[in-house]
């Protein structure tokens, strides 16, 4: 049981009529891991998640949760899974408190002390009718129910899109606690700092294809660092060094420069810089945002890591 993957998605496809929403999605989630799932609007994150949850049927490939087929064995899978969608819609005539209890009971759970703590932490007035809640408050209802559910996999699809920064922080703490107690989490989000902070592995999806998977470090490794340097001698030879891009001299003497450099060339470049006597040096690994922007902005003309 231990070595079963929590999530194993291979070559997943999904078409809506003629439109291919998912073309080739591959995801793996190991027990105790937090997997971040990012990509631009309409890339297919929610669609992937809905296939994983057995809400829609894949048109090809396979999606397995706990080693079981996501579509055929959805009921068994759902016994050990909690889900919070990005847009939470709740029965207008129930109160928040009633909804939380209902959701817990439906997953075979009970209202515990942990539930009360969560209600307090998220500062939710549970006596109000769902129809009077704001978007963020509806999201809190679903989050409280999910976090007080004791299962092994938690699936969040943009769970914090309506939360204020304070509540988002609480969300991050709660995910951390889940991780510490050995739970697995799939988190789709547009808030990259959130993903960067919380996730062990990141999968990037674009136009229905997962184009990159790995830890943030490994992705940073695949791509370029940005370097700002000042030396005492001119840096002319940088101009035709392999692995150096976007070179920009900041002064006429060409002793101050900014450029980006491929990770595997960094040794050669550093050697060249030292030969020119370094006065000042700053290198920054790319943030997830840089990575993200590079993947989507530069389009196909410049593949990262090539």
């Amino acid at each position, binding site marked *: 049981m231990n070595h079963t993957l929590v999530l194993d998605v291979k070559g997943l496809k999904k078409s809506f009529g003629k439109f291919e929403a998912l073309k080739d999605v591959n995801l793996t989630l190991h027990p105790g891991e937090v997997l971040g799932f990012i990509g631009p609007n309409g890339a297919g994150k929610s669609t992937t998640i809905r296939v994983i*949850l057995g*809400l829609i049927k894949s048109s090809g490939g396979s999606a397995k949760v706990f080693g079981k087929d996501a579509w055929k064995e959805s009921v068994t899978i759902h016994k050990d899974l909690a889900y919070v*969608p990005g847009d939470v819609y709740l*029965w207008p005539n129930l109160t928040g*408190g*009633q909804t939380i209890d209902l959701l817990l009971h439906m997953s075979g759970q009970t209202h515990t002390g942990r539930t009360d703590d969560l209600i307090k932490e998220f500062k939710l007035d549970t*006596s109000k*009718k769902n129809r009077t809640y704001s978007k963020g408050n509806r999201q809190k209802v679903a989050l409280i*129910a999910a976090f007080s559910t004791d299962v092994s996999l938690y699936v969040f699809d943009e769970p914090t899109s309506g939360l204020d920064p304070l509540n988002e922080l609480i969300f991050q703490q709660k995910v951390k606690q889940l991780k510490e107690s050995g739970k697995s989490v799939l988190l789709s989000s547009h808030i990259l700092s959130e993903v960067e902070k919380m996730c062990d592995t990141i999968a990037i999806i674009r136009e229905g294809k997962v184009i990159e998977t790995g830890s943030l470090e490994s992705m940073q490794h695949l791509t370029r660092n940005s370097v700002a340097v000042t030396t005492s001698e001119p840096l002319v030879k940088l101009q035709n060094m392999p692995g150096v891009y976007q070179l920009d001299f900041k002064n006429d003497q060409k002793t101050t420069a900014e450029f980006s450099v491929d990770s595997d060339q960094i040794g050669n470049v550093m050697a060249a810089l030292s030969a020119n006597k370094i006065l000042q040096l700053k290198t920054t690994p790319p943030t997830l945002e840089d990575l993200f922007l590079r993947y989507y902005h530069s389009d196909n003309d410049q593949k990262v890591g090539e």
Partner: protein
Amino acid sequence: MAQYTQTFALLKANFKRDWIKLTVWLLVLAGLFVAVAAKFEGIYGNQQQLNTIAQTLRSPAMKALFGPLTHASISTAIIFATEMAVFWAIFMVIFNYSLAVGGSRAQEESGLTEMVLGGHPVGRLAPLSAAALELLIADGIFAVITGIGMTFANMPGSDSNGNWLFAVSLAAVGWTFGMISLIFSQLVADSHNVSIYNYVFFGLTYLVRMMTDVSNPDNTWWSPFGWIEKTDIYIKNNWLPVALFLILGIVAFGIAVALNVNRDIDAGIIQVRGGKRQSRFLQGPATLLFWNQRSISLFWIIGMAVLGASYGSVFNSIGKLVNDSPVIKEVLGSNGVQALEKNQVLSFVGILGIIFTVLAVIGGAMVINHLYTEERRGYLQLVNTTPHSRYYLLTTYVLYGVILAVVILYATLMTTMVVGNSTLAHSLSIRYYNRMFVAMLPVLILFMSTLVCFIGIMPKLRSIVWILLGGSFVISYFGRLMDLPNWAMKISPFYWFDKVPIHEINAEPVWWLLTIALVLMVIGFVGYRHRDLAQ
């Protein structure tokens, strides 16, 4: 006036959104009306046919169903007016209700009104006024098409004043009820509740009309719905009811405006109260469904029981022979008269059985429909990710819906019986009511299964069920008066039991109706398990 800015732009947008719905409704409402008028001379052309139908229409049962035939001398046109006025007014009210809710509360619910009012230079009262105008124009078009069509139909005994009065009064009754619906749209914050208020109001006015028609037609003035009968079309051609409708409609719109300026967007005048912080009761889909549906289910059962009681309360008049001259009494003997009277009441029970079944199906089908509504609104995404199978979910809704429909039907028949027997000198045995009930069950199940089939495989087309139900009802309720050919009558599943409760139930159609129902149900269930759930 700034409050009304951009009313016309919104009106245009409403028409753009609703044009298919409007076209279909108007074609059916006006087209069918004129078609029936054109065909009418063929059905009731000669004096003998007229006398027969007049006698039928003068019976209290028909009075209760269609309104009274007051005039002594009759013509094709007068019979047409008597048969069609109440009946068509009901459809006009339903049409206008659906437009009014769609143009006011439903639009607000979808967030469109907020976007329009908040982000654009649009007056606060513009959406409401646009809805009122949309109804006015739709009803106006109905009046024009119908008026012209009636002129061409040129029934014997018709006159152009009467033709136009008929067309305009039908449009007016619809519009007025639509305006009243706009008041309810201000009171409560969701379209579902607005519809409930709408139909409760309509039900009350309808019951008052029915009971006063049978007892004392002068009192029918108390019901706005009853005004439609007071036009005396082709007899006196009284335009006063049209004026009354317009005044009531304008007053209602005024009230709606006054309420609208005093409320927040997305809120109703009736405030939403908070509630309990915890729930032990809500354990899963079944208890949730019960919780969400309990008030409306209760409302259906009580409302229908009241309807049954009101029909029951006129049973003694229904039983009376229209032609009870001493000669006839002597010929038939007291036993013969009694048997004849009993048969008269029993065939009335047969018609009531159809009406009650149609309404019971609506009540139950709305529950099953809710499964798809909840799916579309996204409520179910949290349920579908808990360990409950889709079969379980669908079964829950289907069971609840079918049981509700069956309970509604039986409760209504029982109150009809109890109240009916209290007015009759010789009570009718419960046997007849039970027979009626059992005969209607396969029909009820058939319609429910059809809906399940649509929900399972083509949920977008589920409204076809309403067309099938309405069509079957019109064929069976109206077909005989319309002299429809037999093959057309057979399309309606009600046809197969139209001798009940006077005669025993024919077992054969029970089996094949149930078989069709079962097949549809299975298709629906399998389809539901295997289709994508909506977002």
